[in-house]
Each structure stands twice: as C-alpha cells, then as structure tokens.
C-alpha cells in the first residue's frame, strides 16, 4: 500500500491528513502546535496518525508540508541578519519603498520598517542601461570591500539587486562570486535569479525576503527531515508553495520566498482538485474559519494566481487602502481575498447607529459568548446559535456545549437594544452584514476580473463556510453550491492532491508586430531545461514532466499585463494573429474596451514545469440509499428571514445520508466539524462521493 501524508502547521493546531493513494480513504489527526519548535508537533502528529491508521512509516510515499514559518518569520522579525547590495546611488530603495502612506488620513501612520537597515545597505559603482548594455563596469574592488564589510558586520545573508539586472545578470553574477569568495559563510541571492522582472523595488524586496528566510527555513526543514528519516520515513519530502504547487525541501530551502503563503493555498487547491474530478472547472472557493473568510477563484481548472502581493500587509484585497503596509513580492501567490469575517467576528453598533460586523474578532480565546469562556462581545457564531442554525448540543460533535442564553443576552445588550430591534432581527442582521462582506470578497475575485459568477460553482468549506454558503450563493446568483465531506479539514486535502511545480519567468519586452519567434522559443527552452533538470532531480519520471507556457501582454504603454496561454512550441506566424485576437477580447472583458489598432507587446514569458503526481481517487460512499428520511434525526426551530421567522426545520445527520438522497430546504445537515444550512426553496442532492450540491428548487 502507498500513502501520502499532509502536515499543516497552524497557529493553534497542527493537522495531519493521511490518504490511501489507491482507495482515496482519508484519515485525520490533530495535535496542539509547538511554536517554540514546530517540528516537535510535526513529528508528534505524524507518529500519531500512522499509529492510528496502522500504517508503517515506509509505506508513506510523499509527505507534503503546509507551513506559515516563512510569513511568521517576517511578521515577527525573526529573519536572518541581511545585507543589501545595489547600484551606487540607490541603496535607499528599501527606505523609500513606494513613498506612500498606507492610510490616507492617518496622521500617525507608519511606513514598514525596511528588512535591511540602512547601514547594511551598500551601493557599488556599476551601471546598465534600460536595454541591459553596460554603461559602467562593476567596480570589483569596491565590491570586494563591501563583501569584507558585510563579513565584519556578521550578516548571515546577502541580497544583490542591480538596476536592469533582469535584462543582464552579468554584474550580479560577478558580485555573487566575489561574495562567495570573500565571505563563503553567507547565503547569497541574486535578483536576476530570484525574480528577473522589471521594477527594481519589488525585485529587490523579493530577493531580500528570499535570502533573509533561507537560513531559517533551511534549518527548519533540515530538522524535520532528520527527524522523519530517523523515524523511518523514506518518503519524498515536499512543501506547498504559495502558488499551489509543491516542491522539495531542498528547493524550498533555496527559494523560500515561494512559500510565504504556503498555508492558505491548500484550500483552493483542494477545491480545484474536487472540481476537476467532478467536471466542474470554474469554481469560486469560499473558506471560512474562526477569524477570517477567504475567497478564491479557479478558472478552467487552474487557480488564479497574483503577482501583486505584499507580505505582512494590513489588507489582503490587493487594492485600496493597505497598499504600502507590507513587503512586496513578485513570486506567484494564489489570488485570495481575505476578509476579517470569520465565526468569531464581533458585531457592534457604531456611533452613527449602524450595525457593523468585524473587523475585530473574539478569536479562539475568549471566543464567542456562547463558548462560556469569558467572551462578552456578540459574534457571528452567537448570531447563528440564536437563529437555531448551530446545534448547541452538537458543536464539534458535542465536545463543547454552547450557551444560547448568553448569546441572546449579548446580542440584546450590544446590538438589539441600541438599534431598537428585537434580538432575532439583530442576529439575522449580523449574519446578513457578514454575508455582504463575503459577497464583496467573492465579487472581487470574479466579477471585478470580468467573470460572471453564474458560470461558477461555489465550493464552501472551513468550519463555518457551509453555514453561510447557500445564502451567499443566492446573492451572487451562483447556480450550484457544493459542500464537500468534512469541510473543516477539506483544506488539508489540498496538500495531497497537487503536482510538483516550478515557476520561471523571463522579462522579454517585444512588440508583437516585430516578434522574433525564435528568440522567444529559446527563452522558453532555457526555462524548460532548468525546470526539467529540477524535476528529474526531485525524482519525477520523464513521462510525468509537463510544461505550460504563458505570455503576459499589454498595449504598448500600459503597465498591467493580461496573461494568455501559449502552445508548447515555437510560435507560428498565423498563431500570432489568433493570440492578438485573444488579447483584445481579454482586454475587452477586463476593462470594457479594446483598441485593436493599438500596438501590443509581450512583457513576461512564464513557464511552469510540472511533475505530475497521480491523484488519489475520490472516496465513494458505501451508503447508496437515496431515502433522506433515514438520516433525519430531529427537528428544531431555525430562523429564516425569507420565511419571516422561525420554522420547524428538519435536522439531518450527514453521515447517514446515502448517495442520491435529496434534502429539501429549509433543512440543516450536521456533521462533526461543520453545519450545512439549506434555505427554503433550495434543496441539496447527495452525490456518490457524499458531496452536497445545493441548488434552487
């Protein structure tokens, strides 16, 4: 037998998921995280799940790790002491950053503190022009002096980013060699290798984040590897990337900037996998837990990735306020819009008499009022409880008994009385307002990018996602909502169903009307060779290597590109016309206009090298009885605004629903880690894998 083991380390818990490659059967385990040394919990949960499943360590083929170690290191300032080398005259690139304030009207704002202090930033005489030609040769003596200084300053890591080096890496290469020679203990990253793309500040920032994480991430992964090997695990060890692919521990240690959003990517990957297995290629993913909700989009079977990302930024929406509050990176990150509207988000009434939800959260401690752990501020979970949607006696399968009286009291005092409305109306309002924020997040990832949500399936998961999904889908006019089995641990599945992946990019700004297709082909081939070699080193069989090419295009003069797929061969002349046509149409969709007479240009060539890993089969239900009434366990009063009040609502046990069963709304379907609410005039069908598909009657 062969197994895959996924380990996801979060702030509170470390989760393990074990999947049987053949049957698709999964098992989960949870232990408390050990922030002092995360590898302790890693080993503990691995041992536990293998023991419980009675699986010998040797039978694990892949271990895939989702981790926040990189992000946390940046946020907590635990990165390596790093030096920065750039072109003379530009050492303040990091100090100046984008020269903006992260919030418009805040007189007390702060700029993010540079990751390298000014006294460890050095300018060296050298200069390239905007075509990559040398204007001034690198002053190797000056470079040598800088290397000596950095060594004396006892830095652990050095980032090199010269102007226009994305076009010509020669000077950076020499600088790297000098550093290695003078200062062999230091780890060095060159911008031309980490992120060879135009715009010096973002490229430098990406390079610095990469190199400053390398010592820490390298040690961290090595430690895990040593312990796993000692425990008899011979599996390939992989890490989830921010873009949703996985790569080896060795690759992650070299390029840790690729794993800054390792954790959140998994949920979208799981949704992609499930969607593909069910022939649903266009998906909106909605992941709601205790503190946040995250919206993502999958189009044609591929999750959307962004390259406009700031680590440690205040807002995640990618626009508007919050820009300039973090550190930009130019490596691909799964495009998620995150909003502070999880189950623990607090409801309040502002000074203008409006009901508000979030952004403050009661978190896990004290948590919602109903937990009885000292929380006094009403939360979304409290509102759900008052409305009858959560079963007070079956929360986490009955592990915690919820106090509905306390929830009512808190909503009354903190919201209803102030608004002059009754408790139930206020509770419903809390839910509606939180839903509106989530709808906005989903709109940001779909409509705003020119996609019609009516062509998508909403896959909702996380402990709280299925409570709200039906209502959100109705508002978005999404025709089908899919709730997978065990939504609370669905994300972790993403760790186990992704391919080995390496992303490469080359900036090659060329007008389309004067394209040298040979030159383009050569650039792609160079990236392919690199990816190919990498995958073979990682143990991927020749037959499982796949490449996909993309070009980012724009009208000459624009700065934002649209990505289009390219064939895996040298472009033929007649294909260019088709490509242009695609570009104009994509532009029309995104911005409402196209300008077919305007010149266009290629900007970045992107290549993804993938090592296909066989996907586990979906686990089929054994219960084939379509009679839903067999799963009905009780009835409860549940509030629905569309029914103008509480209705006698059937409650179902999800584990007893057979394939083909139909649950007619209004209804609530309960399972260990989540609750599914089906609204009046909607129904849910159980498919043969146990998924609930909610649609309008």
């Amino acid at each position, binding site marked *: 037998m062969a197994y895959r083991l996924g380990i996801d380390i979060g702030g509170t818990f470390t989760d393990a998921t074990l999947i049987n490659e053949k049957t698709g059967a999964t098992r989960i385990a949870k232990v408390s995280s050990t922030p002092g040394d995360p590898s302790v919990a890693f080993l503990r949960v691995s041992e536990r799940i293998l023991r419980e499943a009675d699986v010998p360590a040797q039978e694990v083929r892949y271990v895939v790790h989702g981790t926040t170690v990189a992000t946390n290191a940046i946020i907590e300032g635990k990165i390596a002491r790093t030096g920065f080398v750039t072109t003379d005259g530009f050492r303040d690139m990091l100090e100046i950053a984008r*020269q903006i304030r992260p919030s418009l009207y805040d007189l007390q704002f*702060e700029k993010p503190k540079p990751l390298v202090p000014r006294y460890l930033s050095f300018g060296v005489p050298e200069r390239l022009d905007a075509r990559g030609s040398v204007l001034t040769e690198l002053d190797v003596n000056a470079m040598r002096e800088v290397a000596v200084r950095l060594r004396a300053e006892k830095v652990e890591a050095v980032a090199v980013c010269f102007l226009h080096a994305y076009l010509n890496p020669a000077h950076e290469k020499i600088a790297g060699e000098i550093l290695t020679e003078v200062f062999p203990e230091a780890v060095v990253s060159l911008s031309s290798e980490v992120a060879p793309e135009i715009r010096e500040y973002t490229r430098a920032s990406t390079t610095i984040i990469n190199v400053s994480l390398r010592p820490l991430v390298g040690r961290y992964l090595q430690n895990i590897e040593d312990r796993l090997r000692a425990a008899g695990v011979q599996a390939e060890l992989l890490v989830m990337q921010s873009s949703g692919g996985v790569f080896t521990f060795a690759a992650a240690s070299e390029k840790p900037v690729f794993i800054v959003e390792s954790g959140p990517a998994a949920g979208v990957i799981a949704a992609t996998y499930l969607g593909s297995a069910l022939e649903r290629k266009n998906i909106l993913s909605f992941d709601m837990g205790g503190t946040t909700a995250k919206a993502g989009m999958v189009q044609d079977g591929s999750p959307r990735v962004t390259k406009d990302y700031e680590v440690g930024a205040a807002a995640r929406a990618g626009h508007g306020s919050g820009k300039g509050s973090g550190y930009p990176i130019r490596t691909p990150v799964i495009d998620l819009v995150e909003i502070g509207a999880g189950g623990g988000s607090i409801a309040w009434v502002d000074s*203008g008499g409006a009901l508000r939800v979030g952004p403050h959260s009661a978190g896990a401690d004290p948590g919602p009022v109903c937990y009885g752990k000292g929380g006094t501020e009403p939360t979304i979970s409290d509102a759900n409880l008052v409305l009858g949607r959560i079963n007070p006696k079956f929360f986490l399968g009955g592990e915690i008994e919820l106090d509905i009286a306390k929830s009512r009291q808190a909503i009354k005092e903190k919201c209803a009385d102030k608004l002059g409305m009754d408790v139930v109306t206020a509770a419903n309002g809390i839910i509606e307002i939180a839903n509106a924020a989530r709808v906005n997040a989903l709109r940001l990832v779909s409509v705003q990018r020119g996609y019609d949500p009516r062509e998508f399936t909403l896959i909702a998961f996380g402990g709280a996602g299925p409570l709200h999904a039906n209502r959100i889908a109705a508002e978005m006019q999404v025709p089908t909502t899919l709730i997978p089995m065990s939504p609370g641990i669905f994300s972790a599945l993403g760790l186990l169903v992704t391919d080995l992946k390496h992303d490469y990019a080359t900036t090659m700004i060329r007008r389309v009307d004067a394209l040298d297709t040979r030159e383009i082909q050569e650039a792609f081939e160079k990236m392919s060779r690199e990816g190919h070699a990498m995958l073979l080193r990682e143990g991927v069989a020749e037959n499982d290597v796949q490449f996909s090419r993309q070009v980012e295009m724009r009208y000459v003069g624009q700065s934002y590109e649209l990505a289009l797929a390219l064939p895996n061969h040298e472009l033929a002349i007649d294909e260019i016309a088709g490509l242009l046509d695609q570009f104009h149409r994509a532009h029309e969709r995104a911005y409402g206009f196209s300008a077919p007479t305007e010149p266009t240009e290629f900007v970045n060539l992107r290549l993804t090298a993938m090592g296909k890993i066989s996907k586990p089969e979906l686990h089929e239900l054994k219960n084939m009885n379509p009679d839903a009434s067999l799963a009905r366990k009780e009835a409860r009063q549940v509030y629905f605004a569309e029914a103008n009040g509480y209705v006698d609502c059937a409650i179902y046990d999800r584990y007893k629903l057979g394939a083909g069963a139909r649950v007619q709304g209004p209804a609530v379907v309960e399972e260990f880690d989540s609750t599914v609410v089906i609204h009046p005039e909607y129904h849910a069908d159980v498919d043969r894998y146990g998924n609930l598909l909610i649609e309008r009657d």
Partner: protein
Amino acid sequence: MMGGEGRTTKDERQRTNGKGRTIIENRKSKFENRNSKFEIRKSAISNQQSPIPNLPMDPILFQVLASALVEATEEMAIALKRSAYSTNIKTRHDFSCAFFDRALRTVAQASGQPVHLGSLSESVPRVVRMYGPENLGAGDGILFNDPYMGGVHLNDITLISPVYADDVLIGYVANLAHHVDVGGGAPGSIGAFREVFQEGVIVPGVKLVKQGKLDDDIFRLVLAQIRSKRETAGDFRAQVSANITGIKRIGALAERYGVDVLNTFIEELLAYTERRTRAEFYRLPHGVYRAEGVVDNDGYAGEPVQLKAQVTIDADGILFDLTGSDPQRRAPVNSTYSQTFSACAYVCKSLIDPDIPVNSGFYKLVKMIAPLGTVTNCTPPSAVVGGWETHSRLCEVILRALAEAIPGRVPAGSKGMMAQVAFGGVDPRDGEMYAYYEALAGGYGGRRSKDGPDAVQTHSQNTENAPIEESERGYPIRIPRYELVDDSDGAGKFRGGLGLRRDYHFPDHDASFSILSDRDKWGPHGLFGGRSGKKAHYILIRDGEEISLGSKTTVQLKAGDTVSFQSCGGGGYGDPLERDPQMVLNDVRDHKVSVERARDEYGVVVDTANWVVNEIETERLRASITIKSGYAAGMETRIHANHA
C-alpha cells in the same frame, strides 16, 4: 457617540503662548451648541429608548449597500489603473473615482488622492448643472478641466457619466486623472506661468463620449493640443473604461434593489455620515484657532505668499476662514476654490474617526470662507498650475493652528509642497515628442510619540514613485541617484523624516525641464521645541558646475545636463535634547544623522568605534547646552519665522 445633554463644553479657553500667536477666542455659543445639538438628536432618533440614533432604513440593507457602492468606485479605480498608459496614472495612481447621486451629492469614493476627492465634490455638481442634466443620456461622458468652473489645475481632467437604470437617472460616476501633458508653455504643462491660457488646453465640459462612443472630432481637437498624444489617448480610453465599470456596477445595484431603495439609502447614508461627523466635531475642542504661513515665493516676485487661516470649531462643524491671505498673483501659485476646499476637507477628515465614510454628509459640514481674488480663491485669468503649492501649505497652516488645541494628534511641519517635476522633448529613439511628470516625496513631521517617516508623500497627496527601470525604459533619460538626503531632518525629541534626492540626467538630447515646488527658502516648522526640517535644493549640474535653480521654474537643458531635485526634511517634535540617545545612535549608525549633528543638535556623543553612546559625555554635553529651540522662542506660527 455624542456627549449627553448635561455635558458642558469648555466654551471659554484662552491658550495664548508667550507671543500670543495662537489664540483661542471666547465663545458665547453654549446655548447655540446645545440647541443645535438637540436638533441633531431629535432628527436622528426615531426610537425614544435608543441611546444611539437609529437608521430609519433597515440597518442591514444599509450596511450591504454602503460597502457595495464603495466597492463599485474601487472597481472603477482598478479599471483605470490597469488600462492606463502613463506612468503617472498606471503606476503612481494620480487619479480618483467617485459616485454622485441625482442631486449631485458625493455618495461614495474610492481611496484615491484626497487632493482630488475634495475638489470633485465641488466641480462635478457645477459642471453637470452647467451642461444640463437633461442633455446627458445613457452612455454619454462629459470631459472637463476648467479651473474657473470648479476645476483645479488643467492636468487634472475629469470624465463624468450619468448612470441610468431603465431610463431613470440614478446619479453620476466621475473619475479625475492627472494627465502627464495637457499642452501649454512647457512639457508636462507644469511651469511658472502667468495666466491660465499658458497652461494648456482648457476643456469647459464637453461631451467627449456620446452614447458609448468617443467623439472623434473633440478627441482629435483635444489631442492636437497635447505633446504626448499616444500616451494621453490611452489614458483617456482608460478613463472611459473606469466609468463603464462604475455604470455597470451601480446599474446592477439599482436593478437588484430598486431605484427607490437606492435613493432612500443614499439619503440615509448622507444623514448617517453627517450625524457621525457632527458627533466627532462635537468632541473636538470648540474654539477659534489661528495660524499663518507662507509659500516661499510665487515664481516671479521674491516676496513670500502669505496665507492665513482662522479655524472655528463648534457643534455646527468647522469653519475655515482664509481672510487675510494674499491677493492673487500674476504667477502660478493661485488656488481655485475647489483646490482650497480640498485642503480644508483633508484636514477635517484626518481629525475624525477614519471609519466615517467620506461623502456629502461630511463635506457639507466643512465650511470655508476664501475671499475672491486672493490666492485661495483666484479669478480668471490667473494661472493655477501651482495652486497645489498654496493648497499644500494651507494644510500645514491649518494643522499648525490646531497643534496646541489637539495636542498629540498634529505632526510637526511636513513636506507640505507638491514637489512636481515635469520635462519633455523629442525622444531620440523614435523622433516623437514625449512628456514626463512625477511628484516627489519628502520628510514627514515628527509626532508626539514617534519620528516622522522618511521620504513619504504628505497630506492630500499620496502618489507612488515611478520605478527607475520603468522611467529609463519609457523615456530617454537616466536617473543616476535616488536616495535619502542625510541630515535633512528637523531635530526633535521625535525627529522629522528625511527628504529625498532624485537626479535626472539627459544623456543625448536637449529637453525642457520644469520644477513646480517650494521650500527652498524655509524648511517645515518644528513643534514644541523641535527644529525645522532642512530646506529643499533644486540644482542644475552642467559641465561639472552646480547652478541653483528656483523652486518654480522651467529651464532648457542641453544634452549631458543633470538636474538634482532634493526635497526638504520634516520638522522635529519636542526638544532634541530629550531624544533617547539610543535613537540618535541608531540614526548615526544609519548615516541619517552625522556625528557632528548628533553632538551639536541632539547633545549626544556617539562612540563610533564601538557603536555605543558615550553616556557620561552625553550627560555633560546636554547639561551644558541651552539650545534656543523653537519652543523656547515661543510657538511661532509664522512658519518662516522659525528660520528668520
């Protein structure tokens, strides 16, 4: 929330300092306050038991629509940025988007440039009324930049489009973008002009977009006045795209919820915003506060441009009286009513809860007296291109007036100038005209508990820098240097931020180069004993020789010339002798403050061999120095007096 009825305000306060510059007058407004406050409460509360005013509208739908409308304007902003051509719009985000209702009140706006947002609330209503709402059909778009019809400087061009749902007018979307060139006397349309007709093409509100199509005649006519035709044409299309996006989104909302509901919501939103804003104003210390300041010069006369502000805060809102500011000049520093208004609106917004939305419910409480014919409200044909300098300095003067009244909230003097650079010529690479524009950052003022950030945009301006690689690629120039200006901080317990330096080199062609800036005579003021920031420098480097340029000038460059733009540092806050020596040490180590200034201005002796503070020497030195700080000299409100 608002204070209870029994709460008394301190109606009578006198906080004069030694020089009597900042004066808080007696107010006999106790009963007025109470009465007007009662009015607010009565109108706002529908439920007698309720301690907080209720929204007559369903509070849930209210919140849903509030976020949806702001989101719609944000989507406009994204469409504009992503499809624009000029670095100034696509990368530097020098634009703003907003939605207005049928009655032409500002309802929602994207987080853009505060400088634009306040002015749009003035200009859009005037232009639509002038053109006649009845003459605007679905798919039409009015193009506009006339400073004397509510506009600002000519570069800021606004496109206004009506939003209809089933033939019913819902309102208007508008976006304003700073175009890199609008013709006129110098590339980038920035320069020391004497009247508005030298500044470029004036668009009085014409229908550029007719039923969704660009009017080719008008488009060609406008473009014919402009140097960077291709780029600007692309930017205009991006502006059209932004409005299309806004119309779609808001139209969909109207369809989803019904026009009546949307209209009711708008009324409620404005009332809600007004209520919350009033509550905030009520909490500010009521009184009358004054300050003065100057723009260094007007570009022609050496005489500084005097600005005066008297700020009255009471329960009715805030009144800015700018009476006493200098008469308008035959020079570029004249500010239009809209430009001046946006300075006042910016300061108000920065003093209240940032959570309060910005719309007409807020703007209507910002009252301003700006006498006609002065630099704060100029008449035709005054040049207005440098009106932003006056606007920026007004932000400083107003904040200065409030510094003692609202202790801890107001920073020391900041960059407080637009710091604009524009240049152009014929690009030797393709023989076409080009124009370039950007605005540079400077030091921010120190705050009560923290330093002023280095190299950052200040007040109503928040545009990004242009990446060097993008600038060198797109334009035939080279940027040899982009760095902080060491020792430009105003010393203080919390120091001002450093200014920055950006050099522009023209390797192979002659060009015209304009600076529209200020602060090369006096740096930003310090507060409570903090020193002023170091002044700005504008230098032409020709054949190895450095020639000082004025702050408002256009020069003809020869191939091989370099212009070095060095902005000012921010003012310090509090006595520099009270600065934590460790912070001084860090600054010395970072080369931000020299060893000499650490000793002379901060009284800190740094041991650079071991990078530690020599504590004994420092204590002795600090005890022996009596620095004549700005604080000791009295809280000077005449900003330049700090430098006299």
